C-alpha cells in the first residue's frame, strides 16, 4: 500500500510536461497465419493515463492487447513482429512471460467469473504468487471488491460461485480479480458490451479513481466512452493505427486524419 501511494505521488510530481512512457510500441505487426490484423503500429502510452482505443470491429484492437501480454505464445497461428517495451524492458526480455502477465490486468468483453467462490476468484492471483497468509488474502478480497464497487453486494456471500453472479456483477468481479494482481497496467477490452448502462457508469467511476494508481488502456466501441474517460485516444481502422491524440482535441475535431474525424462524428459507412 505504501509503495503504491509513493508511486502515485512520484508520477504526480513529474506532471504532464515530462510524462514517463509506460508502454512503447514500435513497428508492431500482428498476423494470424497470412492475415494481417495490425500493420506497423507505433505509439506510446504514458504512466497513469487512460488511453482510449477506438475503431470499428476487426480493426486490430483486441490483437493489440493480446500482443502486449504475449498471449501470442498461447496461439500457434498468431505471430507478432516489432518491439513492445513495458516498464522500460522489451516484453520478450522479461525474465518470464508469467511475471509480465501478472503485472498486467485484463478485463474481457464478456464477463468471466471463474467457477469457484467469489473469494477464490479474487485470491487466485495472490495464491498463484505464493501468498497463503489468510489475513493478507482477506484484506485483498475486501480491498479489490471495494475498489471494483462490488463489495457491498457480495460481502455476505463470498463463498458463492463467482460464475453464478449476474453479468454486471461478474464483470466487476473480473475487474476485482484484475486488481488483485496489483497491476501496473489495466487493459479493458470493450468491458461494457454485456453490462447494463448503470453498471457501466459505476465501472467508469471506478476507472476514474484507478487512474491515479495505474495506467489504463481502454478499448471501446463506444466513442463517447472514450470521450468520457480517456486522456488520449487512438483510432484503429482495418489493422492500421490511424492516429493518437489528446481526447479533447480529437473530439473537438482537431484530428490529423479525416477518417478519425468521420468515425468520431459517426459519419462512417
Amino acid at each position, binding site marked *: 500500500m505504501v509503495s503504491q501511494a509513493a508511486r502515485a505521488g512520484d508520477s504526480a510530481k513529474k506532471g504532464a510536461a515530462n510524462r514517463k512512457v509506460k508502454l512503447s510500441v514500435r513497428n508492431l505487426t500482428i498476423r494470424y497465419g497470412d492475415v494481417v490484423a495490425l500493420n506497423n503500429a507505433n505509439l506510446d502510452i504514458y504512466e497513469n493515463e487512460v488511453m482510449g482505443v477506438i475503431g470499428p470491429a476487426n480493426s486490430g484492437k483486441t490483437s493489440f492487447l493480446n500482443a502486449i501480454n504475449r498471449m501470442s505464445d498461447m496461439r500457434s497461428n498468431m505471430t507478432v513482429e516489432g518491439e513492445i517495451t513495458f516498464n522500460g524492458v522489451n516484453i520478450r526480455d522479461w525474465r518470464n512471460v*508469467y511475471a509480465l502477465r501478472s503485472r498486467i490486468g485484463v478485463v474481457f468483453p464478456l464477463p468471466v467469473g*471463474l467457477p469457484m467462490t467469489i473469494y477464490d476468484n479474487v485470491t487466485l492471483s495472490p495464491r498463484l504468487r505464493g501468498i497463503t497468509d489468510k489475513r493478507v488474502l482477506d484484506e485483498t478480497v475486501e480491498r479489490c471488491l471495494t475498489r471494483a464497487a462490488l463489495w457491498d453486494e457480495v460481502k455476505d456471500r463470498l463463498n458463492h460461485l463467482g460464475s453464478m453472479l449476474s453479468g454486471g456483477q461478474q464483470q466487476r468481479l473480473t475487474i476485482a480479480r484484475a486488481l488483485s494482481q496489483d497491476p501496473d497496467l489495466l487493459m479493458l477490452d470493450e468491458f461494457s458490451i454485456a453490462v447494463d448502462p448503470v453498471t457501466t457508469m459505476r465501472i467508469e467511476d471506478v476507472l476514474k479513481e484507478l487512474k491515479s494508481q495505474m495506467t489504463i488502456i481502454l478499448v471501446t466501441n463506444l466513442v463517447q466512452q472514450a470521450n468520457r474517460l480517456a486522456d488520449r485516444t487512438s483510432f484503429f481502422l482495418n489493422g492500421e493505427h490511424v492516429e493518437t491524440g489528446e481526447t479533447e482535441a480529437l473530439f473537438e475535431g482537431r484530428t490529423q486524419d479525416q477518417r478519425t474525424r468521420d468515425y468520431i462524428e459517426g459519419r462512417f459507412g
Partner: protein
Amino acid sequence: MFAATERDFQYKRTEKMFRALFGFMVLILAIPVLMILAILLIKGGPAISMAFIFTDPTNGMTEGGIFPALLGTIWLVVVSMMASVPLGIAAAVYLSEYAPDNWVTRAINLATINLAGVPSIVHALFGVGAFVVFFRFGTSILAASLTLAVMTLPVVIVSSWEALQSVPRAFREACWNMGATRWQTIWNVVLPNSIAGILTGVILQVSRAAGETAPIMFTGAALFLPFLPESVFDQTMALALHLFVVATQVPGVPEQLPYGVALVLIGIVMIMNTLSIWFRMKLRGKKKW
C-alpha cells in the same frame, strides 16, 4: 385468423408420430436389459448366498463358491486401473492442454480413437507378445492387468479429453492473462471442473475391465487354481473366465451356478455404474456456469 389451419394439424400429427417413434426405440432398448436382469435374478438368485461368495469352488467346479474368481477380478481391475488411469489422464491433459494443434496431434487423436475400436482378442494377443513373452512377466496378474490397461487406455484418454474440453476456453484465457502457467491453470481451473466427467469415464472402464474375458485368458487368468494369488506375479482366477468355464467347459454343472456367477458379475458392474452416477451427481452437484 386464430383458427387452426390444416398445416397446424399436420405439424401436430408429425410431432406425435416422432414422439411415438423415439419412445418405441427406448422401449426396444429397455426390454432386453430388463429381461436379462429378470432371468438372471430368477435363475441365479437361489444360488447366491454368503457361502457362494466367500468359499472356493469344489468338486471340479460343479459345487461351492466363487471366492477366488471374485478376488481375482478385483486384483485385475485394481492393478489395471492403477496403470491406465494415471497414464490415460496424463495423456488426455497433454493432448487437451499442451499439444499444439498440428497434424501430429490430430494423428495421435485419430489413432487413439481407432485403438478404442480394436477387438479385445487383438489386445489379448498383443498382451501375450508384449507382457507375457517380451517383458517376461509370464502369465500373471501383472501381464493380464497391463493387457486390460492397454485395452481401456484409449477410452480413458478419449473420455478424459472430452471432459477437459468441456471447460470453456475463456476460463483458461482468464487464468493465463493473470500470469498463471499452463499447469497452474490446469490445477486450479481445468481439472476441478472436469474431474467429474473424467471419473465417470474411468469408472465405466472399470466395469468394462471386470467383464472382459479374451484379454485375460491368455495372459494371466487360469481356469482353476487351488490357491489364492499372493502377488501380481501369480496367476489368478477371474469371474468372467469362470463364467465361461462353468457354462461351457465343465460337464455336470447345476444350471443355477453359471447364472449365479453372471448375477454376481453384473452386480459388480451395476454397483460400479451406480457409484459412477452418484459420484458425478455429487461432484457436479449444481450447475457451475
